[in-house]
């Protein structure tokens, strides 16, 4: 009457019903969802405006590179958004904005130069309100290691301490060529005098043409070739090996036996460290990974675009290299760490040769737990090494960061454990930074 029950078969069918079918269904849904997501990603940039925020005034090297990429980028981003290039007056301002003001919606990318944006981080500058390690890195364009160029007629004066010093032009002595010049003075007795304060590279190119300076540095192949060919300059040394200019010795090689060792050489590498990252593209913290990946892929495609390559060779010359996001991140993370000994050495050299400090050092951060927070975060009370402290928190001057984002002081609560720095302001003690997890 009854068919015999194939228990194994039933078990097998139940297994299929219980586990496999759902898995297949989920898988199918996943495929659908994935393709929907892909379609969503593809459509994400359609009809939108993608902003390339260049963290310098128009016309300089960073602006040129940013605009060069921006010109061809849209055609490689799915959805072909409109591209808008916007400028910020200072690297630090652009970096602060990217970290704290720009929405993490993948619609804005910042373009920075390593020296100007990472140098203040490496030196713990108080003007830094951003953390580059939290950014998403799209990629970078490295124009080539810097070459120190000198007027041929000034060569003889370089090692003659009795002659008129060779004038070295610089913006703010933060670049690799400045490191070479300083270490040349310190360890090879170069007869140099720094003329700094030129507002940008263009102005000291002109100053060279006027005979006002005899030496400067650049990484842009086109500039190097122009000054060698038309302006009587000769290359003295390269920051590191340049495959396109193998005849130019590296600075290390030039130093020969004069090369310092240990922490002093670390200082040379660290001086130029932040500038070892040339022009890089980054998005704000919290940008979804999917969007970051789109931007990375499109950036690579853009830099391989034959039209881009042709323009880049025309503008930058042939020696540039394109790095992807992860490689850029690795470069950036390496550039912002300066060993304490090297930092001291750099500071000592700056003082010795009368160079600008660039920025004021931030006060040391101390980890404290708030015993009491009064008046909506305006007053903090805690103990440090057994001593009671009462700090004012300014709405405009104190930088308050909670969970990695700039926050109002009202977010500070009793019992929170945060890192705090402070300074005297008139008769009161005021917090400079309050950083809470």
């Amino acid at each position, binding site marked *: 009457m009854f068919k015999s029950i194939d228990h194994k078969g039933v078990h097998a069918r139940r297994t299929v019903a219980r586990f496999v079918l759902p898995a297949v269904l989920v898988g199918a849904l996943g495929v659908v969802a994935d393709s929907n997501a892909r379609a969503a990603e593809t459509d994400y940039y359609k009809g939108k405006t993608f*902003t390339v925020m260049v963290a310098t005034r128009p016309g300089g090297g960073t602006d040129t590179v940013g605009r060069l990429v921006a010109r061809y980028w849209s055609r490689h981003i799915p959805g072909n958004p409109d591209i808008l290039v916007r400028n910020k007056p200072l690297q630090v301002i652009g970096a602060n904005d990217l970290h704290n003001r720009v929405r993490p919606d993948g619609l804005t990318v910042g373009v920075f130069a390593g020296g100007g944006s990472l140098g203040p981080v490496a030196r713990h500058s108080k003007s830094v309100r951003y953390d580059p390690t939290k950014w998403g890195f799209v990629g970078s364009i490295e124009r080539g290691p810097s070459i120190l160029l000198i007027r041929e007629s000034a060569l003889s004066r370089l090692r003659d301490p009795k002659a008129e010093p060779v004038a070295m032009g610089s913006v703010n002595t933060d670049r690799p060529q400045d490191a070479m010049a300083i270490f040349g003075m310190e360890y090879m007795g170069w007869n140099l005098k720094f003329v700094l304060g030129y507002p940008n590279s263009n102005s000291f190119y002109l100053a060279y043409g006027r005979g006002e300076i005899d030496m400067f540095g650049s990484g842009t192949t086109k500039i190097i070739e122009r000054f060698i060919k038309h302006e009587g300059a000769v290359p003295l040394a390269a920051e590191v090996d340049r495959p396109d200019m193998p005849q130019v010795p590296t600075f290390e090689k030039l130093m020969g036996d004069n090369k310092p060792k240990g922490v002093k050489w670390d200082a040379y590498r660290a001086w130029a460290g932040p500038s070892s990252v040339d022009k890089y593209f980054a998005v704000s913290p919290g940008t979804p990974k999917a969007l970051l990946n789109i931007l990375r892929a499109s950036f690579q495609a853009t830099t391989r675009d034959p039209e881009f390559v042709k323009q880049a060779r025309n503008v930058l010359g042939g020696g540039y290299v394109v790095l992807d996001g992860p490689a850029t991140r690795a470069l950036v993370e390496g550039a912002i760490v300066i060993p304490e000994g090297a930092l001291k050495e750099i500071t000592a050299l700056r003082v010795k040769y009368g160079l*600008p400090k660039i920025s004021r050092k931030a006060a040391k951060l101390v980890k404290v737990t708030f015993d009491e927070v009064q008046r909506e975060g305006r007053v903090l009370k805690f103990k440090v090494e057994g001593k009671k402290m009462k700090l004012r928190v300014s709405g405009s001057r104190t930088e308050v960061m909670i969970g990695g984002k700039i926050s109002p002081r009202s977010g500070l609560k009793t019992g929170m454990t945060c890192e705090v720095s402070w300074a005297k302001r008139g008769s009161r003690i005021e917090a400079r930074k309050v950083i809470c997890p």
Partner: protein
Amino acid sequence: MKFKPGDLFTIVIIAVLIAAVVAASEWVLRASIIVLALGGIGIVLATAQLLIDVLTRTSATPRQTPKYELPTFDQIDPRVTLWGSLEIWGWLIGLVIVIKIIGLPLAMPLFVLSYAKFYGASWRLSTLLALMIAAFVFGVYQQIMHVYWPESLLGDLLAGSL
């Protein structure tokens, strides 16, 4: 010695220059030298001006005004000037508050509409002017320049509710 309300402005200028010099004295010389030098000269000049005004002024002394400055305020009753100035400053401060509440793109046409209407324009004219400003804001700043507008209370509320 004859003081006039205008001397207060000179005193404020002197105070600003002194504050600038004091602030600059804490900087490195390279950065402070121009402020110290010119600020010092400015303090001397402004003080001399104040002393000249206060000590030599008589009822008959004409107002010292640069030749090219438009004598806009001189020709009107000072009370009218003061009240009129306070009015327009009130409008401007109100505009800033409204910008913080509803945002710049909405606040500008609203300001134009309400100011024009308040002082006698017809509804048609006021609306036309407001629409012109709105067209400029949305056409140029929004569509062409793709501006990121400053945050506003209304914008935050809308973003929070979505």
